[in-house]
């Protein structure tokens, strides 16, 4: 029974983190058609920047998180203007730029800090215990923040004027331009939001697990699968598929051993794509 309770808790946490990071990637992909392969690295560096402000500068963990989020929002604007905007429509060049950013940032962190063991200081301490349920407050907080941010983003996209304009760009960029929508400004906003979400997730997971220069690699592989499975332009699809992949991530290691769980995970995703190449909620080609 405890195993079931523990697994359900893990499902919720994994799902919320996958959804949070994937929303950021989806924003950029939907708006600009660019698959930001540096997103995993931004997730990683977000954690390290929060650590730096919390430990080296001495800020409270929450303040460090806010500062890190603001920094990466600005970084998102920079990325859009100088790294993505020149290559809209040029998939190959955009991929190369993203790979370059990833390699440079990863190796800088690895060379400077790779041999040092680090974790973001606790955001909240203590363990909640009630019967069979035993969960740290930090894990509950991670799930809560992930859930709240996801809801805010979905509401923003569906209910606000800015969000409606972003959807218009996603559906037809040229038509949106003709309607007088400032596409470049909204793309910058999308990138800022996407990078900020990645930084928040990286900071939360950096406290929940540990920091490593390569913690973004696994996350990137997962969220790429998530975004592709969800389908282009589908924010709601990301939530549903995120829940599915988060559940698989929590359940398969319990049922299977070692690397088999990872292999089965990928096989299931491939099989789904064979039957539904446009993803669950994407539009048929």
């Amino acid at each position, binding site marked *: 029974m*405890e*195993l079931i309770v*523990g*697994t359900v*808790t*893990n499902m919720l*946490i*994994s799902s919320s983190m996958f959804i949070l990071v994937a929303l950021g990637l989806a924003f950029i992909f939907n708006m600009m058609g660019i698959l930001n392969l540096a997103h995993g690295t931004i997730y990683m560096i977000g954690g390290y920047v929060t650590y730096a402000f919390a430990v080296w500068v001495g800020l409270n963990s929450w303040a460090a998180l806010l500062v890190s989020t603001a920094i990466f929002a600005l970084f998102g604007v920079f990325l859009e203007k100088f790294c993505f905007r020149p290559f809209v429509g040029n998939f190959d060049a955009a991929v190369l730029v993203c790979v370059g950013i990833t390699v440079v940032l990863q*190796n800088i962190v*690895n060379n400077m800090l*790779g*041999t*040092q*063991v*680090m*974790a973001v200081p*606790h955001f909240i*301490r203590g*363990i909640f*215990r009630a019967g069979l349920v*035993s*969960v*740290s407050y930090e*894990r509950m907080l991670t799930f809560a923040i992930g859930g709240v941010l996801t809801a805010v983003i979905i509401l923003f996209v569906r209910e606000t004027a800015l969000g409606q304009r972003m959807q218009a760009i996603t559906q037809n960029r040229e038509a949106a331009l003709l309607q007088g929508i400032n596409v470049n400004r909204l793309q910058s906003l999308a990138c800022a939001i996407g990078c900020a979400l990645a930084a928040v997730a990286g900071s939360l*997971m950096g406290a929940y*697990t*540990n920091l*490593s*220069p*390569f*913690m973004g*690699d*696994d996350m990137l592989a997962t969220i790429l699968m998530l975004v592709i499975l969800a389908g282009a332009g589908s924010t709601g699809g990301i939530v549903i598929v995120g829940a599915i992949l988060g559940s698989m*991530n*929590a*359940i*398969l*290691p*319990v049922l299977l*051993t*070692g*690397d088999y*769980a*990872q292999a089965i995970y990928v096989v299931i995703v491939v099989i789904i794509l064979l039957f539904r190449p446009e993803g669950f909620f994407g539009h048929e080609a």
Partner: protein
Amino acid sequence: MEKRSRIGKVTMKVGKSRLPVLCVVLALMIAALLLVHSLGAAEQKADQPKTLKIGALVCLTGWFSSYDIQTGQNEPQLVVDTVNERGGLNIKGQKYKIELVSEDCKSSLDGVTAAATSLASKGIKFTIGPAAFFGRASAPITTRNKILDALGYNVLTPDEIGPNVPYTFAGFGGAAAEFLSGVNFVKAKFPNVKKLCMVAPAGASNKYLLAFQREQLAAKGYEIVGDYVVYPDDTSDWSPFAAKINAIKEADAVMWPNAIAFHVAGMVKSLREIGYDKWVFESSNVPAQDIVKLITKDSARKVTTGCFMPDSKSNPPELQALIRKSQAKYGPDIPLSMATATATAVLLDMIERAQSIDSTEVKKKWESMDGQTIKTLFGPGIISGTKTYNIKGHGLGNPVPHQIINEKGEVSEGGFFPSGPIP
């Protein structure tokens, strides 16, 4: 012009007959000078140390680099520096300075293959590393090129050390010695523990190592409860595995023979969060201070590791000297292992014992020392392992230090425990 006077003729004859003699003497003097000069030059050359290159197969990039840069490159470099400061190796009167040549294994088996091939192409005949399960990718290449490889860590597969790869040796006890020492430690310090939940990373869960562990535990009177809990080496979310461990209720404690600091910290934190309060016995070289640093005393409780205390009086003098050198060069906060450093020291010792830089001669010497005790950084080591590795003289049993993190999260020394000879 010939002089007609008697004296002149005599003079002329004497002058003529002296000239050849003078020429001969002059020639002899020049030859002697040349000979003396060349002998002096040879003697001078013999005084100049030559360079012996040792290859280091080390993960400089990728997920394993956080462990391997320090363990597989920086610490062996300290050993090399120490040997060179003492004048280098003395092989049949010729001095050899050691140069460490690192190749990046990129934390992957393909990367190891490429790195080993690169070192072979450079004509290097002695190597150290790679660590952990990576050795099975380098062993076929080093064997094919007759490169003698001293592993810093091995996980008992015949692909790493065995009759098919006769040029690979254990330069450090590795999984076998750490495990045996760990069992001896638990038996001495925790005599009430009888039933164990076993945990292993995927890279150290091969059938040979698990069979070895099961056999040794049974021989010492321990019972393994449930299946091994095996996790991928690059795991970042530990909660599913903590849930699995928590579900094995009959176990008195967790035994975890192989891990790195990130593994232990993440898993122990997840275990404590779900209320699992039993001891975790980890016996590979993970600094306990790093676990406390990563997950704080709130979670880092009731854990043992197979690592030394940097300031312990129990540390052998050579080990302590290297610890001080590392702290001076790389800072006091860098985690220390000294596994591949031990392999480096043992390799250089064997080269000097063989009095040869021919890898085959050193191999023969090493194998001939089966059953003998040698000096290692961790104390006296026994060359052994014929049954375990199916080849004579390729294993090494050495003492392993242990640390204890108590119920309050305080780190203390557990002492050095011998592994004994590897079966």
